[in-house]
């Protein structure tokens, strides 16, 4: 396994989090009925720390992010839950309040940088936008700040490139631009939705280094949404593992990866082909994620779980504390290590 980030001191996890999400539930209306895409998700992100939301495609982690930022598609609706940021419950706040928070307090970096940027406006205009919206700056001043921003995120010759268009930048540069726009107003919380998935490995490392620097400089709470275990191991302090719309385990990355308390987490970790021997079978989790139209009663993971028992089929395990700093949504967390 690759090197793990330094563990966060225990006191930190109890101090007031920058973002506290409780019971977030999102329903989607489809042609064939209503589907629960996010089910009572609860987590907290602290300043100066990276929380990873880890899960496979379709587990609801991106939808959690979009719900928090208030950018759900019209078919999706937040039906329950609170999200406290800067003493405001952003999920029940009105649009004006949310708009005021978007940028200075809460920012998001999207996955696909090319389509995320408006192709018809120069990069300079788009970077200057947060300053014009929130600080009412004049164009010239905002442009100056935009140049500073571009320099900060490592774009060479920023002054010259202000008049360039998004399609004239490489993928890595575009991602830097997105990050620049997100951190322009020193937000308290930065959500990064698969920030490196579309990039090649060397650029990935640079982007993550940049995020780390910015996190330290602005003391942001960084919520990293990803399916990449290695990324979580390297960059995150704490992790929340998601499966089929629910959080199944949370805790410090070092502890969770060393000794998982949920069969799904264990399955994920086991399937990483480290120390694999040529010719041997690779381990994988049998079966496939459940169809969200027909989530079973009881535990969401029961169909694929080696520990599944009668109680798993009838009662859904709540996300409960196991020990001081960890939580698991399993009836038998202590049996996981021998599964």
């Amino acid at each position: 396994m690759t090197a793990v980030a330094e563990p966060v001191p225990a006191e930190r996890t109890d101090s007031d989090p920058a973002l506290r999400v409780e019971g977030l539930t999102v329903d989607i209306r489809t042609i064939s009925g209503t589907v629960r895409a996010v089910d009572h998700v609860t987590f907290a992100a602290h300043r100066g720390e990276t929380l990873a939301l880890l899960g496979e495609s379709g587990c609801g982690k991106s939808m959690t992010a979009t719900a928090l930022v208030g950018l759900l598609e019209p078919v999706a609706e937040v039906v329950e839950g609170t999200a406290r940021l800067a003493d405001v419950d952003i999920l029940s706040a009105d649009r004006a309040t949310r708009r005021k928070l978007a940028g200075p307090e809460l920012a998001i970096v999207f996955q696909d940088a090319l389509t995320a940027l408006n192709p018809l406006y120069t990069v300079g205009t788009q970077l200057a936008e947060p300053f014009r919206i929130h600080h009412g700056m004049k164009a010239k001043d905002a442009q100056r700040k935009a140049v500073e921003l571009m320099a900060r995120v490592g774009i060479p010759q920023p002054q010259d490139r202000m008049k360039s268009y998004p399609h004239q930048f490489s993928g890595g540069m575009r991602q830097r631009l997105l990050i620049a726009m997100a951190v322009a107003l020193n937000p308290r919380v930065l959500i990064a939705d698969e920030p490196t998935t579309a990039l090649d490995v060397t650029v990935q490392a640079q982007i993550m280094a940049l995020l780390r620097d910015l996190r330290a400089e602005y003391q942001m709470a960084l919520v990293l949404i990803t399916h990449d275990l290695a990324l979580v191991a390297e960059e995150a302090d704490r992790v929340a593992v998601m499966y089929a719309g629910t959080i199944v385990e949370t805790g410090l990355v070092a502890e969770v990866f060393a000794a998982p308390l949920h069969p799904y987490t264990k399955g994920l970790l086991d399937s990483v082909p480290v120390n694999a021997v040529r010719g041997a079978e690779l381990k994988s989790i049998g079966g496939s994620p459940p169809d969200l139209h027909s989530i079973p009663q009881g535990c969401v993971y029961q169909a694929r779980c080696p520990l599944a028992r009668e109680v798993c089929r009838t009662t859904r395990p709540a996300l409960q504390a196991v020990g001081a700093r960890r939580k698991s949504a399993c009836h038998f967390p202590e049996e996981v290590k021998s599964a």
Partner: protein
Amino acid sequence: MSTQMDMVPVKPTTAIVGEPETDRRPGRSVWLRMLVNDRVAAAAAAVLGLVFLTAIFGPMLVGDMATHIDLDNSNQAPFTLAHGWANVLGTDPLGRSMLGRLIVACRTTLSVAIPAVVISAVVGSMIGMWAGFYRGWRETVAMRVADVIMSFPSLLLAVVVLYVFSPSAANIVAVLAITRIPVYLRTARAESAELSSRVFVDAARTFGASGSSIITRHVLPIVLPTLLTVATLDFCYVMLAESSLSFLGIGIQPPEVSWGLMVSQGRTYLHTAWWLSFFPGVAIVITTVSATILAAWARIAGDPSQRWRLTVPQKRLSRFTKTGKAI
């Protein structure tokens, strides 16, 4: 690829070999459900159906009501049954029943519009699909031809052509069909070109399928909904074009009658008998508006990523998008 959720489905970009996207499209009952859900579109479909039925069966039922000249009853006002139910919409200067003439004109108008649409749709789509599939010089030539035809206002083209060759129903149909071919050509070509680069086409080729069979079996079913939408809208346009030509005197000639011609004939009586021009126009408007509404509905229903709008009850939909928490 886990796609448990049908949420806002994007046009499928990964294709399973040999399995066209037709499997993903909703069956007929879902189409019907979507139509009924949108009350306005359903009303439009009903109206159009009525118009078609009138065109087919109407003239039979009214007999010679449209041509029976009765000079004693000339220019009678509508909305009274004093002169018999046949004249409930009034009569023209020759005492002929407006209602009867409207019904007969319906058949004439439609018998020009529908063949024109069908011909241009078939010819334009075939050329378009062929050009888009093979790309290269075929595509360039086809697009150039389409550009040339489109760059000239159709009415003008029709006017000049009908000046040189005298107006007859067949000539009108031919001219209208030719001017509308580019619309289908462009649409079919664009879709066909996009599809021809998909994996399943290469796969079909490895099975030894020829170009034309790939087009008919794979490209056509996918392109068909879009083409039908275009055709519905185009029907509207062709109807209006024929009416304009007849109005100007170079379309349908008397003693045949079309709605456009009726409007033109009623023009001199505007002060005394307003209904002569008014009712034929209303007939045109009703038909074309219904076709437009239906086409707009079909465009949404045929697009998988927009379809959700038609499955959500109308009231709920506006609630989502007004100022509030969801957006």
